[in-house]
């Protein structure tokens, strides 16, 4: 492309992944819209995908890239389901360093706080498999 300098980045900083769940209505619209708005407005780098289920079915290579990329914070749905999707796509998430925030049950404020590292939320919900 060009010889412009590569932008500064911090590999230790967690990547942020947002799932839009665009093929179903199981995540409340107001929550997913507010979380997307919060992430977009923050100006911080993040990755947004239309639907993790759809990507898992296609074994989209982006899932493997994300699973291997180090610390990760995910705004999606139930942690058990999200981990299952990555595993089924052949790219299991590491046990450590991944925080999954549930837009099906939590408010946008809670999810955003977790995504921004403001709230110290558990990696998985109580009773969930790690």
């Amino acid at each position, binding site marked *: 492309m060009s010889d412009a300098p590569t932008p500064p980045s911090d590999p230790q900083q967690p990547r942020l992944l947002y799932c839009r769940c665009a093929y179903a209505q199981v995540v409340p619209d107001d929550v997913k819209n507010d979380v997307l708005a919060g992430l977009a407005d923050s*100006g911080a780098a993040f990755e947004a995908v239309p639907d993790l289920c759809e990507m898992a079915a296609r074994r989209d290579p982006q899932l493997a890239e994300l699973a291997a990329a180090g610390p990760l914070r995910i705004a999606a749905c*139930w942690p058990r389901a999200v981990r299952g999707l990555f595993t089924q796509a052949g790219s299991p998430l590491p046990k450590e360093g991944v925080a999954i925030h549930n837009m099906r049950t939590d408010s946008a404020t809670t999810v955003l706080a977790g995504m921004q590292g403001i709230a110290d939320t558990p990696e998985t919900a109580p*009773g969930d498999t790690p």
Partner: protein
Amino acid sequence: MIASPTPPRVVLYEGPGAEPLEAATRRDLFTRLLDRGYAVSLAGRGAPATPPEAAVIVLGRFQGSPPAVEGGSGPVSVRDISGEPLEQVVDAVEAARGSRPMNRPEAAAAETGGETWKPWFPVIDMDRCTNCMQCLSFCLFDVYGVSDDHHLQVENPANCKVNCPACSRVCPDVAIMFPKYHAGPIDGAPVSESDVSREKMKVDISALLGGDIYAKLRERSAGAKARFSRERSEDQALAERRRCLKKLADAEAIPREVLDALPTPEEIQRRAAEAAARAEAARAAAEAAT
């Protein structure tokens, strides 16, 4: 559908050498692209963007030369969107994609004429699955298969009947999830002890009834057939089959559309026998391997 190639990924670059979009514009652009089925990254600040293996379209309000893209192996196209309205930006992304087919969320498919496959398929919780193969012997649509190392796997997700979570109901270990289902634990919610007991009870009841619901269907069908031969009443046999299917649909065990799409009783019997044989062979192979 699933056979669609990976759609190109869009990167909105706002790092050095580019002017950031206004917050509202950025938000709007993300929403529009996601709802059309594109993955979008905001890059240039904070965590580095994941080097893409797929085709990538880089957008930005560049102040001079666009930035270098490091890593990745897919083709890259870059577009300066300075002064462009969002509709034009989205159209440019569509144009850059070219004629490659792409799965679309329903609303976008209606707008653009593309196809929609709702990603509905079982997801196995490998921490709970005991490789009992009940799901494999239950499913008549070849969704499940066995890996080279003799473990259950979801082999043909596109074969799954949308909105049918029936196989998750026969799993004694509550290991089958459908993330787009409306209730837990099938949707992936944490599994409680009572969920496990309930599932075990379902399986026991199913066993008491003489097998799975398809077996029940076959039995009913056979009964109807016997009556048909006695009474020579095709209408009566059909009515019996309809009553049986209605009962299953009313119990919300299986969506009506799925029941309506079931093959003939003979075909069900053949497929069930095949699936059971595959499951048995897989179990035996797994045992031999341990």
